[in-house]
């Protein structure tokens, strides 16, 4: 069900996301002080190559990671297999990537 290649992709993206998650949690804790606003978020991220990189890598990693995770859960708990399972994995991955890329673009260079 899960090839060794997918197993490694899952672990590598996980390791990659450890510093990103910590960073993101820190930003959350920092940013919610005194409430959130669109202007505040955009003020931090707009035109910033650094935030673009940070969240860009995050989105790619999470898309791969979540797609493989969803694949395992859907196979084991829903019983989906074969081509249907591949389709679910790819839709999850590509869907998350598309939505995530759109969001990152929106808060940085759009």
């Amino acid at each position, binding site marked *: *069900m899960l090839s060794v290649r997918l197993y490694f992709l899952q672990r590598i993206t996980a390791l990659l996301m450890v510093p990103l998650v910590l960073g993101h949690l820190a930003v959350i804790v920092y940013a919610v002080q005194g409430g959130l606003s669109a202007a505040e978020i955009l003020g931090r991220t707009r035109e910033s190559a650094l935030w673009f990189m940070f969240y860009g890598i995050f989105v790619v990693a999470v898309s791969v990671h979540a797609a493989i995770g969803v694949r395992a859960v859907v196979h084991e708990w829903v019983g989906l297999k074969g081509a249907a399972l591949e389709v679910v994995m790819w839709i999850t991955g590509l869907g998350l990537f598309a939505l995530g890329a759109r969001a990152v673009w929106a808060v940085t260079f759009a």
Partner: protein
Amino acid sequence: MTSKSLKVTIERGAAAKSAQHVFHVPAHESQTVLDVVSWIQQYADPTLSYRFACRVGMCGSCAMMVNGVPRWTCRTHVSKVLEGNAITIGPLRNLPTIKDLVVDMDPFFEKWIAAEGMHHGGLTREDPIAPVDEKSAARLEANAGIECINCSVCYAACDTVAGNPEYLGPAALQRAWTLLNDAKDEGRNAILDAVSGKGGCQNCHSMGSCTAYCPYELDPMSAIAGLKRETTKSFFNRVRGC
């Protein structure tokens, strides 16, 4: 204690998965679950099918679900598992039921073979006996897992097996790990290929039910982790190679 009786529910058969038959069995001191099943077969319902052989935890044939937990029935005292006055006994999980409490162990053993759980010899009877260093780290790893008697308790306990029919399961993978660490076994590449295939060790989610329920207190979960490490190493060696 002899005057008391136990309320025993037997979950019978594949065709009648929901068939629950209740029996009242006289309670005794030092009574095992296997004693209870045997009493029912001998005194209440001779049509009840079940499997046992040695009665002392050596043969691995009497495992059943006892109150939802896989156990050797011969080494499980009733007093240890009784819920109030009741006990529920069913056929082992994750294997096809043949009849009543008897499951078909074929898939379990087929996976044992699929994981290369057999000796890969390289010597002939003409060769001198290869020395085994009892203190080497590899031998200690192998020793930790070789007492497995194939009772399938770990296989029945594993939810990954339940959801992923291709998964080789804890017992087969643990045997592969002992062979990988066996100085006399020369099947390293065959084993690594077998345990990293479709149903390989990478499917394990380390939930540890195998280790939690192994009646011999073996640790298949750590053995599988060992296989994951070796698979990882050989994967990166192969990547570097090409």
